């Protein structure tokens, strides 16, 4: 039972990818079917973790240091739930988006492979398997990004591929150092054994740097905007909402779990400062972007920045309910961004399809003729700004409160500026939707394409913003009791 539930979220999409390659003619059907099954298996596993706590297994009959270990705790389960629901939304949307096009046939195997790698990252229990999954993730992501075949897309994604490889190699160097010192790569075993030393610190720096490159942490974000902005809409959604989260997840795991005894306030401050830079620079560039998808891509750079603001505060707070709250808020922020950004990109894709381009200044007519899509952009946008009642508002509230309680008030300035900049770039888009174009006749014009975007955006606002409690339960936190 446990065995199956841990393997299925990885095995199902892999199987689907193979079948979709073998039978290209029915690839879309296979793809959506696999997506539904994968999502169900992911949610099932999340449910199991909720009910019975952490799970882990070792495959292949070997003992722990040798066998392939998989494990799921609250953190991985929360992200797995996100990847399941967002992945399902993207799949349903892609069915309509690619219908009747040649490119769709290549989309499905690559997308399912990407999903395999993603779930693999969330569930892998040792550092080497994580490397393999990361590599697979980078490869499939770059291939997907280049799917349009345009020159911009190919060159951007070639760069994405090279950056991804550089990131993985740097990470692998760090892993090698750890292995020479401790002779094991299992996260559970290592976290019991690691002791502060120059070698371990070097390894942490290398791994973090490699992953920061993959997570597009400022100033290593240069590759992200062109790669994400030039991909087809469902791919952009997957890259921005899910793929960068994988690298972030690993950094969070390393810093709060594996190397929790090694990290210090200075190092965490550097991560926070880079995050602050990402918020300001990313938001500024989003504000100046001429194209809708480029705006969304820069907004991802900024949102990743918010996630890194949590590190100096997590470092400063002693273990206890206050730190648990902050950790849960960090997960909430990551998950909310996943839903919101996926919804945003899917909706942007529809606007782009309708208008034939995505130059923001000329989008008025297209935006106004599709109320549901514009509404999705507005909902997702308010989650990106961090307005209530979105999940990111709650996360930001806890973040600001922790900043004040630990005396690190300067992060508040960054958050305030980031919020205002985000409002400016989101409403720059939304203001186009209030022109004097003819009135659309009804709210939803194309159900199959519009509903996934709308539901994802709605989840980031109504679901995560008004009922964020399950994330706390999933992580096993009681919360601050008053």
């Amino acid at each position, binding site marked *: 039972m446990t065995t199956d539930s841990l393997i299925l979220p990885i095995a199902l999409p892999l199987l689907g990818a193979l079948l979709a390659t073998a039978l290209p003619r029915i690839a879309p059907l296979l793809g959506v079917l696999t997506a539904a099954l994968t999502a169900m298996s992911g949610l099932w596993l999340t449910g199991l973790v909720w009910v019975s706590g952490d799970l882990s297994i070792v495959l292949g009959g070997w003992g722990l240091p040798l066998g392939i270990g998989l494990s799921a705790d609250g953190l991985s389960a929360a992200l797995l739930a996100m990847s399941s629901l967002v992945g399902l939304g993207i799949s349903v949307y892609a069915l309509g988006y690619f219908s009747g096009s040649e490119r769709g046939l290549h989309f499905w195997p690559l997308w399912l492979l990407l999903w395999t790698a993603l779930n693999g990252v969330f569930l892998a229990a040792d550092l080497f398997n994580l490397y393999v999954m990361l590599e697979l993730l980078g490869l499939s992501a770059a291939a997907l990004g280049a799917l349009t075949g345009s020159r911009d897309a190919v060159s951007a994604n070639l760069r994405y591929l090279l950056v991804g490889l550089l990131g993985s190699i740097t990470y692998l160097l760090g892993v090698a150092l750890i292995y020479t010192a401790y002779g094991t790569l299992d996260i559970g075993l290592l976290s019991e054994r690691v002791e502060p030393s120059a070698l371990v610190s070097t390894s942490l720096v290398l791994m973090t740097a490699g992953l920061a490159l993959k997570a597009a942490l400022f100033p290593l974000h240069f590759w992200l905007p062109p790669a994400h902005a030039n991909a087809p809409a469902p791919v952009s959604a997957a890259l921005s909402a899910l793929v960068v989260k994988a690298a972030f997840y690993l950094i969070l795991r390393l810093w709060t779990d594996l190397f929790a005894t090694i990290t210090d306030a200075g190092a965490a401050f550097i991560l926070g400062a880079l995050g602050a830079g990402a918020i300001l620079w990313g938001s500024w560039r989003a504000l100046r972007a001429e194209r809708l998808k480029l705006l969304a891509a820069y907004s991802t750079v900024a949102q990743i920045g918010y996630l890194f603001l949590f590190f100096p505060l997590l470092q400063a707070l002693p273990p206890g309910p206050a730190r648990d*709250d902050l950790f*849960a*808020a960090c997960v*909430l922020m990551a998950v909310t961004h996943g839903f919101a950004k996926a919804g945003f990109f899917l909706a942007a894709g529809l606007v782009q399809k309708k208008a034939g381009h995505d130059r923001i200044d000329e989008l008025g007519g297209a935006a106004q003729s599709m*109320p549901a899509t514009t*509404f999705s952009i*507005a909902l997702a946008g*308010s989650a990106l700004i961090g*307005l*209530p*009642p979105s999940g990111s*508002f*709650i996360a930001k*509230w*806890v973040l*600001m*409160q922790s900043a*004040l*309680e630990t005396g690190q008030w300067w992060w*508040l300035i960054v958050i*305030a500026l980031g*919020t*205002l900049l985000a*409002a400016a770039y989101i*409403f720059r888009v*939304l*203001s186009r939707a*209030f*022109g*004097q*174009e*003819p*009135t*659309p*006749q*009804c*709210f*939803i014009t194309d159900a199959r394409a519009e509903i996934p975007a709308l539901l994802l955006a709605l989840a980031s606002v109504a679901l995560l*913003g*008004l*009922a*964020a*409690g399950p*994330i*706390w339960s999933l992580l096993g*936190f*009681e*919360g*601050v*009791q*008053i």
Partner: protein
Amino acid sequence: MSQLLTWTTLLPAAILLSSLVPGALIFLLREESHVLRGVLNMAGAIIKLVLVAVLIWGVFLGVVFESRVTIAPGLDLVLHADALSVLFVTLSTVLWLVTTIYAIGYLEHSPNRSRFFGFFSLCVSATVGIALAGNLLTFVIFYEILTLATYPLVAHRGTPDATRGAKIYLAYTMAGGVALLIGAVWLRSLTGPVDFVEGGVLAAMPEALHPQLIAIFLFLLVGLGVKAALFPFHGWLPQSMVAPAPVSSLLHAVAVVKAGAFGIVRVVYDVYGVEFASQLGLLTILGIMASFTIVYGSVMALTQDGLKKRLAYSTVSQVSYIALGASILGPVATIGGMVHLVHQGIMKITLFFCAGNYAETLGVHKVSQMDGVGRRMPWTTLAFSVGALGMIGIPPIAGFVSKWYLGLGAVEAGEHWVLLILAASTLLNAAYFLPILYKAWFRDPPQEWPNEHVFDSRFETMGALLWPPVITAALCIIAGLLAAAPFSPLEWATLIARREYQP
């Protein structure tokens, strides 16, 4: 925090949902389903009115109504009805009903009605949420939702002017929202969850924290002052006059401006506590800002030729009466400020409805075009006159009652300078309203109106446009004449003051 589902825990949520659900459904309607949209709108408004009537009775008897949802551990969304929230809920519910009727008439044949009425309902839901918010977190949430819900209403017309007005509105309110958020989070980090309690909760804080509490108050004041249009944060209000008339009415009388003023009242009385706020010297800051805004708004109103702009600056001035009432220590002044929350609402909505009628029926947008409108549209002009005279403070109209109590409260508190402000404001109000009345009633009408529409109606204009101002004008007189009757706004404000100053 699980809660038994009883009528006392469900009623506040039901009041909120009675406009939220119809609003969500209206978005989904096809543009041409006029009847269904009208039914949804009116059904929501009437159900809300009935529920609020039950709420008033319950709160009067001392029943505790509270709906509580836990968003995350330690972060609760609380809807709680106390006497002050009932005052604001009732105001917004009654005026929503009237404004809905008016808006249905006003927007007949205009585009994008599903979008308009959808956001209109969201806007009222957010206002009711603000009124019923039981803690600071809930207040902030609904306060920001209100910003989001009103933006599309201001931008509704889609003209370059409307887009610009909406942009300015957003810039001000977003910046204010951030200030409010910082203040709210800061306060929470010092005290834990900030529940609104009659009489305030902060008086017991150690003395060492007092400087921080003052700084927090300033952040909150900036955040709330933007919506309440306190000088120097009022710049958005005249700009957002580009919105359709029902929106202006709602923004000025009920929703946005009132939300800011209501927030100031909440923070002064139910967070800091009025005595403690006075002890920290916060009331002085508030009083100076409010007084300055009262005079400034009136002076600016004098110079405006656009009728809606003149009314807008008049709002800037009049809403500050509420803040002024909150800034004077003493129950009588409190009553004056609180009751003005309602009185300003019904008077100002009357004036905006009338301005909308002049614009829709005759194409009259400017004060200089108003010669003789009283002969062409006597009922509208009568309603306008009631509103205007009430604003000046002439008995027996509602505005007189507010000014009387404010003045009396100032004398009681020994703050005699307030009388000067009131006198100056009264003179200025007369100076910018009386010329309009003179023109309207005593000058000869022009040969031709700028853009006259003839409606197929027995009256001077469409029935749906005429009745709302007539009804609200009647309310202005009733609220003034029957001020001492049970359940009048004044009696209710007295009840609030009694509960706030209870030892």
